[in-house]
């Protein structure tokens, strides 16, 4: 794609990320995944920043997917992402992160081995509706992906 991207150095981390996301692939294709989020949270389990990918896959799209268009859109996506650092906060070292997927309907347990890697989360939620900062929205049939950052609302009670 002729694009410079960043990825994790540590091989196991890379594998983790890859397998986690890859495990979602069949569900995304079926349109079962509504959002996927990378959530950064502090030691108490309260999120401080969430990168949310909102997905919409058009199930009834029958024609051939235009590779070039899709590639173009995705490229714009990745470019914007790499310059969005100013929108994010600097996080302390002991914070953790996880990838959470929001399903429209729960998958069958036995269907796919990969999905067994996904477990229910118990990261806490914010009490107030968060503040959204959109990063990129792209829509190229049949896929529509939007990325935005969520930060806690200013009226969110401090822990």
């Amino acid at each position, binding site marked *: 794609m002729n694009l410079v991207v960043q990825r994790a150095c540590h091989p196991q981390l890379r594998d983790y990320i890859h397998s986690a996301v890859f495990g979602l692939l069949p569900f995304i294709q079926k349109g079962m995944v509504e959002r996927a989020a990378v959530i950064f949270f502090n030691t108490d389990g309260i999120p401080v920043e969430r990168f949310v990918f909102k997905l919409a896959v058009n199930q009834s799209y029958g024609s051939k997917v235009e590779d070039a268009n899709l590639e173009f859109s995705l490229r714009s996506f990745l470019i914007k992402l790499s310059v969005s650092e100013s929108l994010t906060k600097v996080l302390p070292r002991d914070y953790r992160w996880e990838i959470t997927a929001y399903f429209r309907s729960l998958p069958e347990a036995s269907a796919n081995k990969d999905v067994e890697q996904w477990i229910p989360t118990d990261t806490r939620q914010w009490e107030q509706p968060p503040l959204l900062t*959109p990063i990129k929205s792209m829509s190229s049939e049949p896929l529509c992906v939007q990325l*935005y950052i*969520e930060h806690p609302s200013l009226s969110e009670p401090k822990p």
Partner: protein
Amino acid sequence: MAVPSNIDTEDESSVKNYLQSNHYQPSALVSSNCINNQNMKGSPSSTVSEPSNQSHSTLGDPNFVENYFKNSRLHFIGTWRNRYRKRFRTLSDGFNCTSSNIKASALKTAIMHVDMDCFFVSVVIRNHLELRDKPVAVCHSDNRKGTAEISSANYPARDYGIKAGMFVRDAKALCPHLVIFPYNFEAYEEVADQFYSVLHKHGNKVQAVSCDEAFLDVTDSEGDPQLLASKIRREIFETTGCTASAGIAGNMLMARLATRTAKPDGQCYIPPERVDDYLSQLPIKALPGVGYVLEEKLKKQNVWTCGQLCMISKDSLQKDFGLKTGEMLWNYSRGVDNRLVGLIQESKSVGAEVNWGVRFKDVKDAQNFLSNLCKEVSLRLQGCGVEGRTFTLKIKKRRKDAEEPTKYMGHGDCENLSHSTTVPVATDDVEVLQRITKQLFGSFHLDVKEIRGVGLQVSRLESTENSKQGLERNSLKSWLTSASARTEELCKNNYVAKESSNQGCEGEGDETLGQLCGNSVGLSIQMDSNTSNGAACLNEVSVPPPICHLDMGVLKSLPPELFSELNEIYGGKLVDFVAKNKGKTENMNHTLRAYSHEKIEGAMKEGQAALLPSMVFQNEIPVENKAKQHIAKEVPAVSGAESFVPASGLTKTDLIPSSLSQVDTAVLQQLPEELKVDILEHLPAHRMQVFSPNVLLYPTEIPLEALGTKTAENNSGSKDFVLDNNLWFGTPPHWVEKFKVSNCLILNILAEMYYKSGSTGNLSPILQCISSVSIHQLDAFQDGWDEAMYILCELLKQYIKLKIELDIEEIYVCFRLLRRFAMKSEFFIQMYNIVYPYLQALVGENYGGNLHMSLKD
């Protein structure tokens, strides 16, 4: 009283026979032979077939939640406090003021703790003297193999080792001839009331702990506290037939501990000098506030008695268990307790939980259940007179490899999940609760078949009376609901008036009609001035509305006899009026068809006072409602009403926010869906100027016509395509053409920009082009400002609606640009302010948050 202390986590007792009425014979151990044959009987083993279990769970009983709480002892105990407060309100409140200033330390205080003995059992056998010495326990079920829990056992039963919380089958195993009685909540309430009456007779300083336990501060009472205690105990026995025990000491802690020693049917006094002695061998778990977990932790440090606890330093205790708990332990181990009797603990949360009999087949089941649970919680909130802001939904979910629960219909081995959410405005409304609960429930993404328990807690409580005085009064919702209450009232008044006028002659009719007007005076400001200025002819104190204020449509559709009656009242002038105004209504109807008729009609039919018609319509209401009463079909009245509505509605700025720019976003987001949508669609983007309320006052002006034409002007070009919602359809989008031919400068510019920016279908390139034009020059034009404003706001709103689902980035860019323009232009500030609430409302709906607009540009 033998009630488990950790009530929250304890299972609810089995309600196996709750459908059955209480027909227990004391001596016969009746387990079967029930009235309803839907209960399975005989000697059920643990492998009972499914169908007969239906009625004992959410699966079979549609009223499960309601019945559950009716028969729940935990519910009784939990909600008792509120009942007590209501009954003894003045006493307990009055007490607080006086005692708060006195420190307990200085004087030699005397505190008494009174506690009835095995309350539930004592009450049910008080009329069965022969059972006094026999083992008796209270339980829902009398089944030899049952898993219902014993809630209370008398002392003879305790001698057999029977304890509260034990399964009835285990109790029966320990004592086969144990007599089981069912609950009798009415009796419990009665006895509790009597108990407290006795206590209050002997002093005002009563702190209730539970329905059968209380503290009294008897420092200021005359005589020996011990004698007083005997007196009180005797009176309790005489009134209720049940015994009580009492402990007397210098503070609440010691008094309570003393009662422990005193039981049953006894009293015990611990003077200050004997405190240390008493405590040295006392096991730590006897201290109130030390539960299982704390006990285990202390045992690990080899602390088993209070004497041993004394030896640990305060610092060390606070380090290990926290500041408050550490201090409490240090104090208590020395018999020190500075609490004052009577300080009422306000509940921090109100809620309801069901952890027994919960089985769902499908999502619909679960939704019904949640709905009923919300009703229960709403009732409890109202009962306590509070509203809450934080809602926590707790769910017990069966663990993956858990077996069938030991207890019949129990929850078994579960993991506890909990999600909560907070809203800005406190509420106790059942529909709001249902909506929030539905949302919370959805966020769990659970398979409903795995659910074994559900609870809803409401916290961040605020007293209802206080909140009503504050924001609530000014919020849209309360205003709308109060309007409906008023119109209902008025309808009732009208009906009564009509009844009497049926019988009377005209003179009487006048009075009752006047009465109608009198009632409506409070509602309409204009009415007042009318009666003083306008409607000249009548000299009586109360007058019918001036003719010019009557609604044509209503008048025309009145049945002839009514019309003639009204005509008489107006001295024959009505006929002329109708004829005169025939011409004008056509004009009115034409211009105002822009507004959605069905919506308004529907709203009125449903009796909602929401929207424009009824609320604005204050001075027309008497006639209109009067007409409504008589007409079998509503339709004519409604169609008449609506044609009048919008014009006059828009002028009354004091009744409804007259434009979206006035709407409070937080309130708007809280409204139910239909209301929100209606408001967004019906309110104009901004206030229509020029029309002052005075215009309507003077009949000579014929304001209707003026209104009619003015609105025609404003809406003429725009109304068709605005309403069709297709400004953005087509290539180029329809708005481009319209704007090109418009006579507003700014619209022309926009259309031009469309082409300049490359004719994409998006707004952001256009806005970016605009930034090259000097923005503040746009303010210079005054021509058609209103029209332009209206159109542009519509344009933006339709654009938002179009893009919100799939392209939030675009919307974000557009609004960041608009905000930048707003820094330099009056026009854009206004536009931005108008559309902003709409934007955030839609973002909230689709993304669950608000756009972050306050970054530095």
